[in-house]
């Protein structure tokens, strides 16, 4: 088996037994990236020199036996909205095309502490705005399972990279399905964490109330390993939770017999592709066989998830993107500028793509004097009701199961004509972020040759439970082991 195909768990095993060095593993991974990525375009930046240097440092640590963790020497990459010191960070936008942060996001510091090896930055929908990775200002990422199809978005590059073994894991970011959708389209396991479980310091913000960084990897076990390293309160992020971090690996092997799994009926009404529905139903049968109790629940405000999500997104993104003004970093279009207003107008016109422009304008609209109550405030109130839906559901069950997307990966260009249509495809993933609850996306089958994903949704801070259930499922099935032909 090629080194780059190893899971974190398997790689750590070989590394700790000194059968493989980090340098060997990293070199193999980088070579594989350079061979394979030209077909996929998952990466915006590959940092070879930095990666090799980190690998050597990891090997040194391993040699002297200092601070060795399950991630020491393991190559990974992150979505390009996470700040990495001295490595270009672009959010796949022209406005940050040449921006090199002078500081690390907290999650990057924690992974560096653990000894993991950063190899590069992943393509995404520009500023996280999109569900297919087609909104990147640079290039399109292709789904490794079918190069004519989208990998999903907005963490499309991260999902495609992990699917194609270009790195043992990735850090993605989920605001409204952005880890789960691409994970589902690319046959990868991805975890949207509880809002506040992982520090957002250094994450280039899209929706401050919803953004959640999470791991994407080969399986639940690997996701748990990564989560262990990055979870926990950060004094730089006032919204990060003080709750203690459990030992995620410890509970992984516990049996799931007797746990209650809820099926939210609103998620199973018309609209799913038959192949998708079939895979989900089969997965539910598997859970039943594992001894879980299946019951139907209701999340009555589900259909309002989309407007709540987008109205809050428009407003917060509009404010979060105001700092991109051509004065302190990034693109700066001064030609012909008579004054600073011209600088702003020109720079932002040239630097932002059409979807970004749409959303920040709509954000100004919904926050405008006279409209605030009807739109933003209204959305925040309905958001409370969405939260209450989940709270009520979790009194009757320990986790919920639902499809991640009504379809498998669609063809490139299929949905780009109309923004509203694109928004509507998020229907199953947008309610979790306003409620702040975690959700684990797992491969659960194939439809017309393309991967199908399901999500396990849990209550606040129930990552350990979700990973446990996911691990049980993956011990009983092998969907997650399938690899695309390109690998």
């Amino acid at each position: 088996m090629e080194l780059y195909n190893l899971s974190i768990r398997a790689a750590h095993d070989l590394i700790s037994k000194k059968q493989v060095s980090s340098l060997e593993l990293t070199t193999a991974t980088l070579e594989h990236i350079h061979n394979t990525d030209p077909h996929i375009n998952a990466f915006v930046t590959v940092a070879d020199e930095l990666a090799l240097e980190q690998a050597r440092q990891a090997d040194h640590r391993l040699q002297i036996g200092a601070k060795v963790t399950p991630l020491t020497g393991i190559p990974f990459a992150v979505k390009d909205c996470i700040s990495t010191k001295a490595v270009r960070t672009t959010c796949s936008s022209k406005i940050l095309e040449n921006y090199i942060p002078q500081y690390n996001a907290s999650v990057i510091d924690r992974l560096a502490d653990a000894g993991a090896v950063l190899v590069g930055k992943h393509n995404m929908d520009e500023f996280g705005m999109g569900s297919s990775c087609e909104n990147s200002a640079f290039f399109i990422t292709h789904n490794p399972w079918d190069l004519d199809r989208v990998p999903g978005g907005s963490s499309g590059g991260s999902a495609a990279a992990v699917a194609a073994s270009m790195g043992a894991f990735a850090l993605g970011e989920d605001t409204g399905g952005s880890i789960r959708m691409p994970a589902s389209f690319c046959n990868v396991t991805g975890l949207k964490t509880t809002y506040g479980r992982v520090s957002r310091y250094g994450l280039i913000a899209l929706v401050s109330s919803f953004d959640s960084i999470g791991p994407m990897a080969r399986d639940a076990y690997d996701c748990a390993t990564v989560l262990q390293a990055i979870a926990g309160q950060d004094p730089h992020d006032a919204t990060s939770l003080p709750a203690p971090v459990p030992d995620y690996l410890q509970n992984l092997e516990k049996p799931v017999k007797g746990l209650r799994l809820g099926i939210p009926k609103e998620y199973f009404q018309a609209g799913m592709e038959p192949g998708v529905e079939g895979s989900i139903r089969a997965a539910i049968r598997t859970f039943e066989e594992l001894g879980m109790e299946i019951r139907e629940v209701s999340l009555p405000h589900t259909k309002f998830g989309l407007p709540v999500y987008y109205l809050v997104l428009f407003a917060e993104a509009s404010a979060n993107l105001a700092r991109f003004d051509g004065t302190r970093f990034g693109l700066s279009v001064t030609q012909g500028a008579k004054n600073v207003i011209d600088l702003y107008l020109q720079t932002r016109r040239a630097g932002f793509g059409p979807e970004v422009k749409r959303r920040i304008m709509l954000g100004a609209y919904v926050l405008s004097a006279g409209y605030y109550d009807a739109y933003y405030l209204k959305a925040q109130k309905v958001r409370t009701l969405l939260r209450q839906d989940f709270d009520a559901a979790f009194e009757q069950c320990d986790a919920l199961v639902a499809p991640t997307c009504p379809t498998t990966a669609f063809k490139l260009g299929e949905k780009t004509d109309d923004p509203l249509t694109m928004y509507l495809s998020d229907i199953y993933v947008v309610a979790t972020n306003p409620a702040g609850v975690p959700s684990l996306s797992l491969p659960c089958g194939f439809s017309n040759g393309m991967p199908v994903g399901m999500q396990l949704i849990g209550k606040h801070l129930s990552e350990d439970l979700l990973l446990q259930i996911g691990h049980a499922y993956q011990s009983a099935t092998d969907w997650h082991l399938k690899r695309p032909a390109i690998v």
Partner: protein
Amino acid sequence: MTPQEPAKTDFTIDADMVKHVAFLVRLGILEEEAQAFSHQFTAIIDYFHLLNEVDTQNVKPACETSSTQNVMRPDELRPSMSRQDFMKNVPHQDGAFVQVPLVFGEE
């Protein structure tokens, strides 16, 4: 609702409103772009009027509550960023200050 259906209401976001919000976010747009955005914005926001079906009279906005409270830091100095590092990304500067084209009665 699909985009091909005609608008069910009189609600509209016209090109003037588009230009107004474009300026609020300091986005330069052209007249024809304003027209195109006008159709898209109208469809999108009109769809979101769906929220009016929900009775929220006694519901508190989610943004006023939080699972954490009183997260503060002590009044202590932390290491700053060096000016040199900061200036590495600044497009127009003279080594000490950030330079910006002159302001005319903006505020």
